């Protein structure tokens, strides 16, 4: 299950080796997973994403892999898609995006919220 999640950030050959790193790093934090307010799988995704973003950080961003959550954003506006992709797949900060488009943080927050609503509708 986690491999398809990793694949949205990286190409297959790189995703495979990173999956090994993710599991070896996270296997020492099982207690943290059990104590989290998130389900084990969501905790795994969140922590895996941190490792992935750290890995791709120096290479100029992710989102080079397959579509996963992005495929659920087909009905969203290009702006909403861009905000989701930059925040989620590339790990950029809201402030950074706000600065880039010359708007405030609330504008980015709203676009993210709308993109998540779109994802939520496609998930049901």
């Amino acid at each position, binding site marked *: *299950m*986690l*491999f*398809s*999640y990793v*694949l949205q950030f990286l190409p*297959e*050959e790189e*995703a*495979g080796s990173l*999956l*090994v790193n993710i*599991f*070896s790093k996270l*296997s*020492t934090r*099982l*207690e943290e997973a059990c104590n989290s*307010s*998130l*389900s084990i*799988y*969501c905790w795994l*995704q*969140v*922590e895996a*994403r*941190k490792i992935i973003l750290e890995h791709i950080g120096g290479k100029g961003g992710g989102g080079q892999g*397959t579509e*996963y*959550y992005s495929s659920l954003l087909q009905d969203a506006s290009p702006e909403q898609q861009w905000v989701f992709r930059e*925040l*989620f797949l590339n790990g950029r900060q809201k402030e950074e995006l706000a600065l880039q488009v010359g708007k405030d943080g609330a504008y980015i927050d709203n676009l*993210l*919220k709308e993109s*998540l*609503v779109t*994802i*939520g509708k496609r*998930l*049901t």
Partner: protein
Amino acid sequence: MNIRNYIDSGILQNYALGLTSPAEVATLEKLLPLYPDLQDALWDWEMKLEQYAIQHQTPPPEGTWELIADRIRELPATRPAYGQNGHSNGQETKEKEEEYLSVKHHSSTIRVHKYWRPAFIIIFILSKIFLALSIYYYLQYKHTQKDIQSLQQQLPKANGPVQAAGK
């Protein structure tokens, strides 16, 4: 706080995807135990993400799970390396701590030596034998008591004809 507005803000979706700031996480984690609706909404979203993950799973390249298993197996194997050189700096200590699986074990059971097992079995069997013997001897005792009672009742009757014959 209007919890419905808070849920509608999309905070839970952000949280489950790892898009919240540490301050937002802290606030949410404080509120979760206080508002069942909030917890239910989070579970609902998590369930959707998990179902999506199940429906769209892709098997990893062949041999990946073996590599993961090998890497995890290597973790405890690195332990003696730290003890053998007799000294370690802070970095090594930190790495060492990260390599151990931290497991808190809360159990109401106790562990005893394996020799106690046959001892307990022998004690159990002996207790059953003693129980059976005590029941047997109790019944024997009751039976004897009855015999004595009936003999005592027969004794005056038997004494009557003997005394009459003597006269």
